[in-house]
Every structure is written in C-alpha cells, then in structure tokens.
C-alpha cells in the first residue's frame, strides 16, 4: 500500500492505482475474514479437543527447565534399548530425528548422538487423536522427554541402530523446540558422495556444513570422527605417560618467531608486538636442557601460511614430543613409532564402530601398519623413485607428488600405510638439525608418513652451542635474534631429538578422509574465522 502511495506521481496514474488498490483491499479483507474464521474454527476445535481430550496431560511443551524441581527419574540411554529391556516402561530424552504421521499413527525416529530408535504414537486407550497430531507436529531436531514401553519387533528395523525394539509412547513432552526450518538436513549431510546425484537427492557441500557446524556435528559421521579424535589424544597421552614422559604446557604468545619469520601471526601486546607460537620447539628443547628428560605437549599451534589446500589449517592441535637419548637418535624414532603403533592398535581395537560409521559415508581401505615400524633411508627412497622413472637429484627434497608416489610404492612392496624415512639430506632441513657423522651431506633427521602424506618431521637437534652457531651462520640466520635459544645450550645440554604431529592430520589420514577440515571441529584457515 505505502509503495503505491509513494509511486502515485500523476493523477491518472493515481486513479488507476487507486482502482487497483481498491480491488486489492477488498481481497485482503476477504482474506482476513477467512483467516479469522479459520482461527475461530481452530480455537473452537482446540477447545473441543481440550474438552474431550482424555490424554491432555500426557503431552505438551514443558516449561523451560530452570531447575524448578529435581525429579527422581532415571533416563535410559538409547544405545541401551535392547531386547532385554522388552516390556519395561522407561523414560528417555532424545532428539526428534524424523516424524511421520500416518492416519491414526505417528512414527518418530528418536536420536541420541549416533544411536537412534523407532518410536510409535498410536491412537488407543493411552494416546488420543490430538496427541498423535501433536507428536506429528513436533519440529525436527527438537529435544523431547518420552515415557514409553519397550516392545520387541518381529521384523528388524533396518533404518535404526536399535533394530530389535521399538518404543510405544505413552507420554511425550517437548523440552526444547527447534525452529521449523533447518539450514541443512542431517540426512543430506551424511549421504556418501555420488549417491545423492544418482537418486536426485541433495548433498551438502563442505562450506555449508562448516557454516552450520553445530548441526553438522550432530551427524553420525561427525560424532564418530570426533570421538575417534578424542581417542587419539587419550592414547597419545596414555602411551607416553607409561613411557615416563612428562606433559608440559608452553606459552603460545612468544616474543620471537622460532622457525623463520615469514609465517607467524603478529599480535599487539600492550606497547609492543608479539607472535603466536608456530611450534613449542624452543620450549620443548629448553625443558630438555632443564633436565625433564622426556616431555610431550598437546596444544594449539599457529601457522600464518596463506595456503588453501586440503591439508593446511592456520590453527591446529600439535602433539609434540622431545626426549633426551643415550647414544643414538634411533632411540627417539623407536619411541615415537612405538607410540604411533600403540595409537593405531588402540583405534583398531576400541574404535571399530566409529571407523565403520565414518566408512559408510567416506569409504576407505583399513589403515595398515607394521610392528616394529618400517624404516627406510632416504637413498633407498630415491632409488625406488628412480626405478619408477622419476628424475630427481640425490640431495633434492621430496616434492608432494613424489611423496605420494613413494607412499604408493612402499604400500605395494611392504603393505604398510605408516613408515619412517630416515637420513634426509642436510641441505633441506632446518639449521638446528644434527649432521650425519659418516656423510656430511646427510643428516640425522626423519619424516613419518601416513597414507603417503607427511605427518611428522623430526630430527636429532644440535645440542652443542658452537656447532649450532656454525650451522645458523651457514643458513645466514641473524645470530642476535636466536641468542636466547643458542644460550640455553651453553650450560650442559644432553643429546636429544623429537618431532611434532598434527592431530587433525593424523585423524584425517587414519580414516582416509580427503580434507583436514573434516577432522577439525571449528577449522581455521585463511578464509574462515567463524564459527
């Protein structure tokens, strides 16, 4: 209406418009009348329902839980709904995954984390017609409290995790109502790639998933991924603690960049500026010099590299190890590989359900490994690549495609997805890497690979202040900037080595996923700062 008034420039137009407007007004009035009539009817209906609904206390929207009362009510977990509980009357709290009304019945799928069960509200002596209607109108993803009888079913319910029982609902209360329109459908988000296209159904692309991460994290796949990730952390801690390691916490706000200045985030720090730690490298080494012997650290690590690839994040969780050894840095390699093997074994033995859940959406071969871990030398790797027809120099660094090819060759010969590559050329490693005593072209450094992608880069560090200065000068590093670092080795430093692993990468490669953002709960990359 207002629009027309504004637009009315000339008389004629105004007249014509007013005619139109009149018509419109009339129409609207009719509509309003109809609406009022409908509302009245609805109200009447509601009234009548309220009047003759014998089950009106058995359902409804609960008042907001403000901790008014402390009910002595045991809520059963969905995963515990097995045939042993048949014919029991139980309470449970779950989300409404889907609801489907069919005449006098309404089927609900109630979901709790990665488990779900079928529930049935049917008109009978327990539930009224209105209750069924109410159940059918509960929005998806709402949280409900349900009292129901567990009943065995004759035919397995294929679509649910609890296939042998269903719930016959006696009471249902909405605890938290979801908005009717969801930004993405959970079923679409877990559909395997390609399957949606065939059936003409929607799949959700990664950015939409990440934009609505809270909902995406509810999917069975996400639930499984992050349960497994928690397992990796747990196994990492347990294994190292058993080996006599000490967990340390290091500062993340640091005064100087530890590895090259280019890829650090600068933050303002009162009147000066500071950096976000790229790795706890320096602090791990200082702990070794301070007689902690074997340390590890689980914490965030920041990289200001502007690379938008499937395996780079700007903030990730680093699992870092540093240890003093007696005579040979292979003691360190052995310690790290044993830890990794313990993690793989723990996942294989305790997280089979999670692995299979992820595999349903993202199929991949099971992760294979050898115990003890296979260790190859750089020269062997170069020979293998030469044999496969790759032209590369003996002291050249491995390019990413060559890394992948090498991974395939190693898999073919040894059938392992995890191996160590030892004795890298000195020229391609950082200045604090210890040179090889027998051949100065090589170094006491190593990389570890999972499914052909690097997950760990480590080495024996130079623990001699003088050699460290020489190496730094060779790399043309400003000695003033690393003075504090070099000085920590002047007062007696044990020989030591270590390495750091990215938690997200380990999970991604273990599960055979294709993007590190899938294993980061709230990923940070050059283009994403929210949620």
């Amino acid at each position, binding site marked *: 209406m207002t629009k027309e008034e504004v637009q009315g420039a000339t008389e004629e137009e105004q007249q014509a418009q007013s005619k139109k407007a009149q018509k419109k007004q009339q129409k609207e009035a009719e509509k309003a009348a109809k609406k009022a009539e409908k509302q009245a009817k609805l109200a009447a209906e509601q009234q009548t329902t309220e009047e003759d609904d014998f089950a009106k206390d058995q359902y409804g929207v609960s008042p907001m839980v403000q901790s008014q009362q402390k009910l002595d009510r045991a809520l059963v977990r969905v995963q515990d709904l097995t045939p042993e509980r048949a014919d029991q009357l139980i309470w449970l709290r779950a989300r409404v995954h889907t609801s489907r009304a069919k005449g006098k019945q309404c089927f609900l799928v109630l979901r709790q984390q990665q488990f779900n069960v079928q529930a049935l509200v049917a008109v009978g002596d327990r539930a009224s017609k209105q209750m069924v209607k109410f159940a059918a109108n509960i929005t998806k993803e709402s949280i409900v409290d349900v009292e129901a009888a567990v009943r065995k079913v004759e035919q397995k319910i294929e679509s649910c995790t609890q296939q042998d029982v269903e719930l016959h609902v006696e009471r249902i209360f909405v605890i938290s109502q979801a908005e009717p329109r969801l930004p993405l459908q959970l079923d679409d988000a877990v559909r395997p790639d390609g399957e949606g296209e065939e059936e003409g159904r929607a799949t959700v692309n990664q950015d939409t998933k990440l934009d609505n991460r809270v909902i995406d994290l509810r999917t069975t796949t996400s639930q499984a991924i992050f349960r497994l990730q928690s397992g990796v952390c747990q196994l990492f801690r347990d294994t190292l603690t058993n080996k006599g390691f000490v967990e340390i916490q290091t500062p993340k706000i640091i005064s100087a960049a530890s590895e090259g200045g280019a890829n650090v985030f600068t933050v303002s720090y009162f009147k000066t500026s500071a950096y976000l730690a790229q790795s706890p490298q320096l602090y791990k080494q200082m702990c070794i010099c301070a007689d902690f012997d074997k340390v590890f650290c689980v914490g965030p690590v920041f990289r200001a590299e502007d690379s938008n690839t499937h395996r780079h994040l700007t903030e990730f969780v680093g699992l870092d190890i540093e240890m003093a050894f007696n005579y040979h840095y292979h003691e360190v390699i052995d310690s790290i590989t044993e830890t990794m093997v313990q993690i793989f074994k723990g996942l*294989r033995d305790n997280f089979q359900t999670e692995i299979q859940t992820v595999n349903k959406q993202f199929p991949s071969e099971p992760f294979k490994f050898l115990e003890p871990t296979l260790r190859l*030398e750089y*020269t*062997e790797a170069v020979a293998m690549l*030469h044999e*496969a027809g790759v032209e590369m120099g003996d002291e050249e660094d491995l390019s990413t495609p060559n890394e992948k090819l090498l991974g395939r060759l190693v898999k073919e010969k*040894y059938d392992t997805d995890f191996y160590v590559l030892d004795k890298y050329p000195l020229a391609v490693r950082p200045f604090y890497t210890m040179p090889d005593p027998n051949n100065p072209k090589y170094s006491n450094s190593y990389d570890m690979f999972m499914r052909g992608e690097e997950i760990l880069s480590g080495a024996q560090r130079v623990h001699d202040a003088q050699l460290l200065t020489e190496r730094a000068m060779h790399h043309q590093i400003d000695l003033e900037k690393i003075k504090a670092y070099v000085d920590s080795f002047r007062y007696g430093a044990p020989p030591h080595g270590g390495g750091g692993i990215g938690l997200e990468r380990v999970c991604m490669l273990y599960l055979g996923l294709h993007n590190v953002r899938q294993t980061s709960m709230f990923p940070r990359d050059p283009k994403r700062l929210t949620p």
Partner: protein
Amino acid sequence: MPMYQNGEVDPAVKALEARQDEIIRKLYELKAAVEGLAKTVHTPDADLDLTVSSSLSSQTFSSAALKGTTDLDSLLGKDHGALRDIVINANPAQPPLTLLVLHSLLCKRYRVLSTVHVHSSVASVPSQLLSCLGPRHEDSYARHLFQLGFTLIWKDVPKLQMKFSIQNMCPIEGEANVARFLFKLLAPYPSDPSLATMVDSWVDTAFFQLAEGSAKEQAAVLRALNSALGRNPWLVGPEFSLADVACCCCVLQSGSACSAPANVQRWLKSCENLGHFSPAKAVLQ
C-alpha cells in the same frame, strides 16, 4: 567309411566324428608345443651355466663370501646404490622353515640386514617367530651398509608371498618358488637339466605331498626318499642341494622324523650336522 554310404548317416555319429577330428587336431598342436619346449630345455641356459662351484658345504661359503657383491649384480641386475630388500609375507600359522634355513645360508654368504615385522592383519605372534631370524645385527641402524635386506613380515596371507622388485616382478607365491629364488642367490642349479629338474621335482614333492598330503602319501614319499638315499648321500647327485633343504624341513615339520626308514634317518643326521637347520628347529619347538 562305407558303412554310412547308404544315406543312413546318423547325425549323432556325424557329430561324434567331428569331435574326434577336433581332438586329434588339438593333440597335434599340443605335440608341436611340447617339442618346442623340449628344444628350449635342451639348449643350456646361459644364466645357469656359471662356473662357480655348486657345492653348498659350509667350507665353500667362506671362499664364496668374497665374491658376494659382484655375484649379486650379475644375479639381480644393476645396483641402484641402495639396499636390495627381499620382502616375504608369511602366515604365522605356517612358518616357512625352508626359508629360515636359506636365510641363515644367505647370512653366511652376504651382509644381510634381517628384520621381522608383524602386519596389522595379525593380532599376536609367538615370541619364537619374532626372533626367528636371530638377534639384531649390531649395524642394523645403518641400512646402507648391507648388501641384501631380508624382511620377514608375519601377515594374514593365504599363501606365502615374496615381493622383491615391484617394478619388474610380480609377487611370487608359494614357499617352494621363493625357496628356488633364494637358493639361486647362493648357488646355481646343477647345470645338467635332468638333475636340475630332479631338484625341482623333489621340492614339489616336499611341499605338495610331505607338507600337505595324507598319512598314506607321506609314507610313500618317505619310501621314495629312502630308496633315493640308498644310492646317493644326498637326494640329487653327490652335492647337497635345495632338494635336501626342502625335503628335510618338510619331514621335520610333518613330525615323521622318528618313524622314518634307516637311510632317511642317516640323511637327516647329515643335514643337521651341516648346522643350517637350527633356526628351523628353534621355530618348531
């Protein structure tokens, strides 16, 4: 065929005739193929015609050890400046005794880096299988110091498998075939093709009849062994060969050593006196 000239030829008979002609034609083809093969067998193979002594008694090993590297280059082709690693996937349910014996022979001849791994497809492996290649070499931290790698992986495989040069060779299946390959790194087969065939034949007998056969078959093989050993000190000719290694290991594994006939008993003793069989015996315990 005068019988059928009256126009009474039965179509079934005609079909039979056609089939017979076809079979005869195939037989001729087969004959030609066999003759062709026989020609290649009678021509001495250049690879086998080495002048190195074919004797495998332990004394000759010390003298042969010096020629190690050049031998490997001629046997395995160009050296790429890296370890030549032989990977063997074996099922822990059937430890490959023959290969353990051949491994200890290889160690006497070359600098061998031996490693044992457990693949993630098997849950646990008895400790004697983990140490079946002997203690770790003191230089094992430097792989490039070795001529040959012997990597034994305990894995859930239906058949023993060897992987060597993945670019040029398909994986080799079966313990017998891997044994033949490893043995050729130690000594050439007898240059006489009939003797070489006999070695192969005994190896087959050992693995198909002694190791997998019924009690009846095993008894028959023991009788055959007994008569062969009545004529010679070793199974094929005057020299110790792969035939002896394979048969000895399979007799030990089948557990019929105690009930074996006299010549076999004597031969088993001689085998043991060579000292190569201790790794196999350690695994059997």
